[in-house]
């Protein structure tokens, strides 16, 4: 198949590795579309095709553009329209020419040998046919044609028969072998091109120049970016250090995973106006009363989870700002979380929480708890709880404990996300706080567990330290 010439599969794999939700079916769709004639006009058309089929958001688009450029633009084996459309025809043509040439050579050899055996037989008529054939042939095949011309000219001088015929067969042979040799060389070339196309050029120049400018635009999802860079750089030993610059951010959960996890944070409750017909209850009522007086209606099922996100800012949390920003945006956009509020604090929540990152709009903790919290509210705290710096701070512990106690009067579900890995909690304030509230480290599993706690799933957490 001609499509196999394209590094489409490579592109597909790269995109999958970068976290795009693509399946085999999506790949087949592209093939199907290409076979139907889409996306073969030029490179832009192919790009549009892949884009329409594989890309579902603006963030993914940047990633796609980067990969597409890396894989498809660098090499020149693109499906120029002739190449894909006419490839099959070309293939047939080349087959015909090959047979013609082989036939020509074969006849030449046979004639040459036969005529040298029956030497004194000056009949030039039959040999006019093989020589005429290649010249009449429409496809320009330079190698066999050039030896065909001199064979036609010395036709009238048939004195040195033996020498001439052996010369003719020699030329034929050399033309054939030359053709085969050239074919072989071209094939080698093409294969080489293919292979170099499949590998993302593992040289330093390609890494040094296009990536930084490209990546400067994609700061949306660093895990994905890191993957892009890793894939691009892992081939060369010299640029190993490059990837550390870009992957120092601690982002163990991709934006997509985070969105997916937020979707679980829901508690459907029937509430509000009675609009839905309760068929079962209506039937039962008719059974009791003997006839339909009025249908029984039910309120609709709505999601009644309200998330209160408390984010620790600045200080030791500076490296995790990107993560907290992502938590905030995904929880806000990821679905309806009721009156989901996001508040910021520094180190531990004391008296005031802030609506903005710069601590300008302060709100009293007691106000927030009385007005914004209900028994439906779930509180997620994102803080390192002193684990980043290490050490134990009694003051911090007490403040946090007081705040949590205050919160627990109103709120049933509280979870704590700690950007530091669990092994770093021990012996620090966060180790102590982990006894007060279910604390999880930030990774996919941890976030899932935290959401489970917020949904009121049973956990084996037991509060200690009272």
């Amino acid at each position, binding site marked *: 198949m001609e499509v196999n010439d394209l590094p489409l599969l490579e592109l597909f794999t790269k995109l999958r590795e970068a976290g795009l939700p693509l399946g085999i079916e999506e790949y087949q769709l592209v093939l199907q*579309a290409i076979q*139907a004639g889409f996306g073969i006009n030029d490179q832009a058309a192919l790009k549009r095709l892949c884009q329409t*089929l594989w890309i579902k958001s603006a963030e993914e688009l940047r990633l796609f553009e980067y990969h597409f450029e890396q894989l498809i633009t660098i090499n020149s084996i693109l499906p120029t329209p002739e190449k894909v459309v006419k490839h099959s025809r070309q293939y047939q043509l080349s087959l015909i020419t090959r047979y013609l040439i082989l036939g020509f050579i074969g006849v030449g050899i046979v004639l040459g040998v036969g005529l040298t055996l029956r030497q004194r037989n000056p009949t030039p008529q039959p040999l006019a046919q093989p020589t005429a054939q290649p010249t009449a042939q429409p496809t320009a095949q330079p190698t066999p044609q050039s030896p065909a011309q001199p064979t036609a000219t010395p036709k009238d001088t048939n004195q040195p028969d033996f020498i001439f015929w052996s010369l003719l067969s020699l030329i034929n042979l050399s033309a054939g072998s030359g053709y085969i040799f050239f074919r072989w060389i071209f094939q080698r070339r093409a294969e080489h091109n293919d292979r170099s196309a499949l590998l993302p050029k593992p040289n330093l120049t390609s890494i040094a120049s296009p990536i930084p400018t490209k990546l400067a635009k994609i700061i949306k999802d660093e895990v994905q970016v890191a993957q892009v860079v890793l894939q691009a750089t892992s081939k060369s030993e010299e640029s190993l250090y490059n990837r550390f610059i870009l992957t120092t951010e601690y982002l163990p959960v991709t934006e997509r995973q985070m969105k997916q996890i937020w979707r679980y944070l829901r508690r459907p409750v029937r509430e509000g106006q009675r609009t839905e*017909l309760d068929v079962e209850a209506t039937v039962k009522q008719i059974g009791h009363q003997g006839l339909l007086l009025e*249908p029984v209606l039910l309120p609709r099922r709505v*999601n009644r989870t309200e998330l209160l996100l408390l984010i620790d800012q600045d200080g030791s949390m500076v490296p995790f700002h990107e993560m907290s920003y992502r938590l905030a945006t995904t929880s806000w*956009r990821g679905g*309806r979380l009721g009156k989901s509020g996001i508040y910021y604090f520094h180190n531990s929540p004391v008296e005031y929480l802030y609506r903005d990152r710069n601590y300008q709009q302060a709100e009293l903790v007691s106000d927030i708890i009385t007005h914004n919290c209900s028994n439906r509210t779930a509180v997620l705290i994102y803080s390192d709880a002193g684990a980043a710096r290490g050490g134990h701070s009694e003051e911090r512990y007490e403040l946090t404990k007081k705040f949590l106690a205050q919160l627990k009067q109103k709120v049933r579900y509280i979870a704590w996300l700690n950007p530091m890995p669990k092994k770093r909690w021990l012996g620090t304030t966060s180790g102590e706080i982990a006894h007060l509230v279910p604390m999880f480290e930030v990774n996919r599993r941890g976030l899932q567990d935290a959401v489970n706690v917020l949904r009121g799933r049973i956990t084996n957490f037991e509060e200690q330290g009272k």
Partner: protein
Amino acid sequence: MVKAVGGKLLEYTGKVQPQLGERGANGQLLYPYLPNPELVEAVNLAIYLERPLLLKGEPGCGKTQLASAVAYELGLNLEAWYIKSTSRGRDGLYNYDAVGRLRDAQLAASNRLTAEQIQRIDDPTTYVRWGPLGRAFQQDNRTVVLIDEIDKADIDFPNDLLLELDERRFIVEETGQEIKAKAAPIVLITSNDEKDLPDAFLRRCLFHYVEFPSRERLIEIINALFPASPQALVYKAIVRFFLLREEMRKDKGEAGKKVSTSELIDWFRVLSRYPQDEALAKLDGKIPYAGVLLKSWDDHIRYLRQSRGSE
């Protein structure tokens, strides 16, 4: 470009336009719609691959209009399903009038129905009311189905439609009737990106971001809608419009609400009511009828401040 598959050749070109004042089957006025080539290609891809096409783009750039344009050009029926915050997946397929059936049963019990009516209520399908998708599945021809503003509904809404969009069949629970699509509908879905759509749903869709039309295309659009309007006015209005849009972009960034095509059309309609020289004179000063273009108080204040600064 699209090869005929099994003799069925459906290709959207975006070139067949209704005449001004032409009315559709439901009596609504039809307007010309000028899509860009990329959009046309995406539509054809969706038609060929029989997959829903998800359209995103800034509000007012013609996502919804596309469906009727496609239906018009291909001569197909259009089923529009406008999503509300209370919409559920099943609403698009069918509704079962259980209360009506109950009522009829009661009437039948008290012998108040004629024989015909009783015959009618014996048929279980009497109480099924088809939704847009349900109707589209039962048509012999392909139907253009518009699912408008899918992000308005509950976050589970798109997931409830997976099977229906994927396998193009559903079962009416109340009657046990299985509805299989006779011809795959051409599904166009629009989203304003208020909420993220679930991955499983995205995976099944083709995606196209509807770009804001270029200046040349906007001129074409205005000319198509107001063929009698003088070119000088069209040109000047669009220059002014782009200036405003650019200012808004600078102020609010890419994400903010900017003036859009639909607002431009409204604005131009107002402008073209005046004689040409009067309208041109109006365009020289402050933005005339700014209320048509500037929708929020913030925008207005900002605009006033700028125009004062420039004087």
